[in-house]
């Protein structure tokens, strides 16, 4: 017990979360046939987070297939205090089901000093 760690780090440093706007996006027909799109803006004010996962859900938070611009995955890299516009694409047949478009902070597993706060902000399609 000599080296027993009395304290465990829960949250280490003060950080802020990201901003995800607009609050109420609208999907429109994209230039690709059969695909609807909307533009979201992510402002990263978390110094400890560089990657965000984009998520699209229906009203019951069931995931809906989607794609984003410039990437094969649903994870985007946004540096500290930078803004990125993310175009979200969904099949037109699914666009009426989309209710929430969310962004969630990704915390690196090997991160030693990062705050362990996972922040997720969801906009609602109306």
């Amino acid at each position, binding site marked *: 017990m000599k080296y027993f760690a009395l*304290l*465990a780090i829960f949250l280490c*440093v003060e950080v802020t979360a990201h901003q995800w706007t607009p609050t109420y996006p609208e999907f429109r027909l994209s230039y690709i046939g059969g695909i609807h799109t909307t533009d979201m803006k992510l402002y990263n004010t978390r110094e400890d987070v560089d990657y965000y996962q984009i998520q699209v859900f229906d009203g019951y938070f069931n995931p809906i297939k989607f794609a984003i611009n410039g990437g094969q995955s649903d994870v985007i890299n946004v540096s500290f205090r930078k803004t990125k516009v993310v175009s979200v694409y969904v099949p037109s047949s699914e666009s009426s089901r989309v209710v929430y478009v969310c962004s969630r902070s990704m915390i690196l597993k090997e991160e030693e000093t990062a705050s362990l706060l996972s922040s997720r902000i969801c906009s609602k399609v109306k």
Partner: protein
Amino acid sequence: MNKLMLCAISAIFVSGAYAEEIPITGNVESKCVITTDTAGVYGNPTPSNLSTDPTDGGVTPIVRYDVSMAEYYKALITWPDEFSQSPELNDTVAFDGEVTVDRVSIATMSDYESAKTEYQNSTEYELTESGSTWFAIESEADYGFSKAFPGGTYRSLITAECIAQ
């Protein structure tokens, strides 16, 4: 010569009549910002228990929500039910937690606590006022049947969500 000078002077006055107008534009839009106000620390009051309660030697983490417009968002805060980092554990860990309103920026937000909805390890608040609300998240973990936690670092993850209504 006099005419030339008069023209030159006129030109100076004419050019001096221009004024630079620098517009400042702004756009107030609804948004939600989540801030970690106080870092949380687990205390270890007994060998089998880790707790963020200050009476147990811990520090309760506090998260602040700022919303720019009323009734646009709800807050969903989830206390941890597993460690994201820990030494190897070979017995069960029972997690418990509680989310409460710690401070508010305007008096009418004091209703948030009585109106909250709790399910599983999540607590939901309707953010019906614009301004800042501080939420305290208590977390506690008990190891096995009064078994001592192995030495090492323990981390767990709070999920703070802001969902448009």
